[in-house]
């Protein structure tokens, strides 16, 4: 019944920014996701989709070691970033997070001015170039410069939710990471802000590798080049709890038009999830 390995052959090792090799993640004793193999291509947008609880956020957080903050969360397997295993003991997780930035579901600007929100990350990472230029450049790239340029000294909270989210994207861009992780960045936003952020993502793809978790199938179709579909199944070894696994990974248009797995087809056509 299970068909062969769903990894697309087209992504070469040297073209991939991140490689997940047999990654399994547990919270305390409970296995949450098992045996994930993924090659995330450079300077492309990869979407993670799947029903609630299948472990998308868990996998995403494992990529920049955000799971370290959760007590009892452990990972088996390897996560290679540019060929380096980021879970090897000599790796500094702070440095990993600088190279692999993260944008969260809820906009979370710092309680500082708009300018400071951008400058903060750059400053703590030892940036000593032209700060004004960096702030403008980052805000422009995140498509929020027009709304911000006249109130750089006002609090980040003075922006609307959608603008705040783009401010958070700008703040992430300002530290010049290689990869940007986004966990449902539009779920708290209205359709217009959502479209703006999607445009932003299109822009960002030129310079950054982007991984985005989304519940919105249309959004995955609009913004992503590749899509990974996860599902959760009952696991007898795990006290009957659900365990997430990767069902299929391919070019987005393949996933939506001619999925290999029947499950994927059911999901993208809205039969379950």
């Amino acid at each position, binding site marked *: 019944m299970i068909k062969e390995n769903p990894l697309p052959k087209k992504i070469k090792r040297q073209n991939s920014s991140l490689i997940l090799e047999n990654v399994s993640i547990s919270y305390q004793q409970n296995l949450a996701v098992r045996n994930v193999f993924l090659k995330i291509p450079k300077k492309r947008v990869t979407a993670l989709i799947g029903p609630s609880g299948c472990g998308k956020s868990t996998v995403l957080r494992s990529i920049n070691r955000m799971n370290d903050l959760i007590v009892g969360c452990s990972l088996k397997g390897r996560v290679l970033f540019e060929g380096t295993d980021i879970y090897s003991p000599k790796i500094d997780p702070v440095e990993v997070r600088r190279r692999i930035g993260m944008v969260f579901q809820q906009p979370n600007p*710092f309680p500082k001015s708009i300018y400071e929100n951008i400058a903060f990350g750059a400053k703590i990472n030892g940036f000593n170039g032209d700060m004004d230029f960096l702030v403008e450049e980052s805000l422009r790239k995140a498509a929020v410069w027009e709304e911000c340029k006249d109130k750089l000294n006002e609090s980040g909270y003075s922006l609307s939710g959608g603008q705040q989210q783009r401010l958070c994207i700008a703040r992430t861009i300002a530290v010049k990471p290689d990869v940007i992780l986004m966990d449902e960045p539009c779920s708290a936003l209205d359709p217009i802000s959502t479209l703006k952020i999607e445009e932003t993502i299109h822009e960002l793809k030129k310079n950054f590798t982007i991984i985005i978790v989304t519940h919105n199938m249309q959004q995955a179709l609009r913004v992503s080049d590749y899509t990974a579909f996860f599902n959760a199944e009952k696991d007898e070894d795990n006290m009957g709890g659900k365990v997430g696994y990767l069902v299929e990974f391919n070019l987005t248009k393949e996933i939506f038009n001619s999925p290999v797995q029947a499950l994927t087809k059911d999901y993208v056509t809205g039969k379950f999830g």
Partner: protein
Amino acid sequence: MKDRVQLLHTAKQLNYKTFSRKNILEKLQTAIAFCLLIISIIPITFILVYVLIKGGTQLSIDIITQLPEPPGDDLLSAGGIGNSIIGTIIVTTIASVISVPIGIGGGIYLAEYSSGGLFSRFIRFGTNVLAGVPSIIAGVFIYGIIVSTKLIYGSNYSALAGSLALSILMLPTIIKTTDEGLKLVSDDLRRGALGIGASKFITITRITLPAAFSTIATGILLSVARAAGETAPLIFTALFSFYWPQGNEILLEPIASLSVLIYNFALEPYEAQNELAWAASFILVMMLLALNIIARRIGKLTMDNKSN
């Protein structure tokens, strides 16, 4: 037609019925709560007004700037409270210098570093117990280990001993408000900082602590206000002095304070000394009031920043 009747009927049901059981009970409850409130604020108002009248009428430049005179020396005048005002300021300042960094550090540990294990639960419990310890115990404790043993450069009663006793009283409040202030800061903010490559230390010092600033500052000011008004711990430690604090050993000598002056002079059989005690009460109440008002201002200030 039938619909209309129905509508009128529902409209009637929505009218306010003054004498329904529910509404009478409601009014009764409001009235009782109001009465209890009045009863509870009567003593406070009474004390404040009494101190303001008794003390405020005594006030003069001389009283604020002069030294007190020992009871019985001069039956008409008891001098002033100048050195007591300065003494109170010195002792509470030193107490803050000691307890604020330690307290904030402890609060940071509890809120940000501890994982909620046995140790941190013990510390939290201990802090709560310490917060409820009568202030005289802090005085006796410092008397026992510092004053009576002449531990610090051979001096016994000293400003420093007084400050230490007060800092013991301030510490639990500062630890608690820091701990609770930090816990109120949303985890989203911490993740945001960590997500752009901030270390834990930077996240705490640059993001979390500033976000909790108003809560912590308010807590500190209130604990300073409490310490400034304490008498019992100072009687055993800082004692009292009829002179200006001066020289380079200020902290190693006994020092005057408003609260101890009140304690000493209010009980004297001389009218002049009693009146001076009232003047000192007035000044002390004013100082505490000012601290409380500043604390409220700070609390408001940052609240406004966040909402707009």
